[in-house]
């Protein structure tokens, strides 16, 4: 784990270079919109820089950044939901579109399904399945107990399974024929 000194500007620059991509991806998983994710990621580092002198090295800096970033993203989603009220009302009664397995395999539908999850559950999914965080690290990033992380992950997966429907079954059969890959682990080792 890289060491940083609280309040040191050069160390914060280094933290920014090391962590920006991971923060951005987490926020993209929660928000589903690259532009919004980038905006929130930038806002995350602004807030983190303002509090940088108060950061305590006993917690991983990246988990601390995630905590700030997820708070920013949750606020963004709350505002976004309020803006979408009229759209939701317009869509009432319209039949749900069928899930395209090809689209699901490309990840676009997965992102959309993640976006429909409660933001804390979506964040837990991304932190676990993309960044490879342990329950303890996710708990530090979300600011909740580890037991809460376990229950959120379970609920999130149940809901994703329902959201993705047949695509999951179909693709899980395809995945079963392929060698298992762990992009999250690869991503972590490269940092």
């Amino acid at each position, binding site marked *: 784990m890289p060491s940083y000194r609280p309040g040191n500007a050069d160390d914060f620059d280094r933290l920014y270079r090391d962590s920006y991509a991971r923060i951005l991806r987490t926020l993209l998983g929660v928000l589903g919109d690259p532009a919004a994710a980038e905006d929130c990621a930038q806002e995350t*580092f602004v807030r983190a820089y303002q509090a940088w002198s108060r950061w305590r090295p006993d917690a991983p800096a990246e988990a601390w950044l995630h905590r700030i970033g997820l708070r920013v993203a949750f606020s963004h989603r709350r505002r976004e939901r309020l803006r979408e009220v009229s759209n939701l009302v317009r869509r009432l009664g319209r039949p749900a579109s069928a899930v395209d397995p090809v689209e699901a395999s490309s990840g676009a539908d997965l992102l959309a399904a993640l976006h429909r999850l409660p933001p804390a559950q979506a964040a837990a*999914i991304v932190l676990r399945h993309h960044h490879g965080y342990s329950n303890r690290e996710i708990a530090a990033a979300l600011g909740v107990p580890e037991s809460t992380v376990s229950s959120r992950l379970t609920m999130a997966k149940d809901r*994703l399974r329902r959201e993705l429907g047949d695509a999951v079954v179909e693709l*899980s059969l395809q995945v079963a024929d392929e060698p298992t890959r762990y*992009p*999250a682990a690869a991503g972590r080792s490269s940092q």
Partner: protein
Amino acid sequence: MTNRLDDLIEQGLAASFARVDSRPPLQPRYLASRSATRRWRVAPALAGLPAALGTKVAVALAAATIAGTGVAAKAALTGNPNPLTWGGQAQPPARACAGGPCPGTPTGGRAAAPALPTPAATASPGADRGGASVALPSVDGRGDAGVRAHGAGGGGTPAGPAAGRHQEADGQSPATDGHGSHGTSGHGASDGGERPER
């Protein structure tokens, strides 16, 4: 099934994120707040300087302008730029008004006529030409010489041979000779103290 779902999620996330440029921008937003913070730290001592200096300079200029204007006006009136000599040219009102009520002073209506200009008075040299005479008190106690404020009618007829004559103030020679003014007006007009000829 759960493991397959996990694999699906991981692959789906990797595919989604691969399409997004996740390189950190070279000009992050927090750098702007950093420079703003530095300015804020440096600024307090200097931020108010231009405004404070501007205000002080403006006040100083205004004070200098007012003082300069006053000095110039007084010097023009007295003919002497030395402020120490301005007070010495005042004439005591008692002597200026000797022999009768001063024009402009309350007299119960009895002495209103002399204060008014009359054709006869205007025609005679050294007569009062209708101006109210206000004698300024002497500030140095020397006596009778002084500046006299001439009335509106002060510039009419030439005041005779004494016109423009400058008489030294000696404390004993009141301006009762009807020949002209004492002080620096240079009009030679007899005013105030002299009674108009009747």
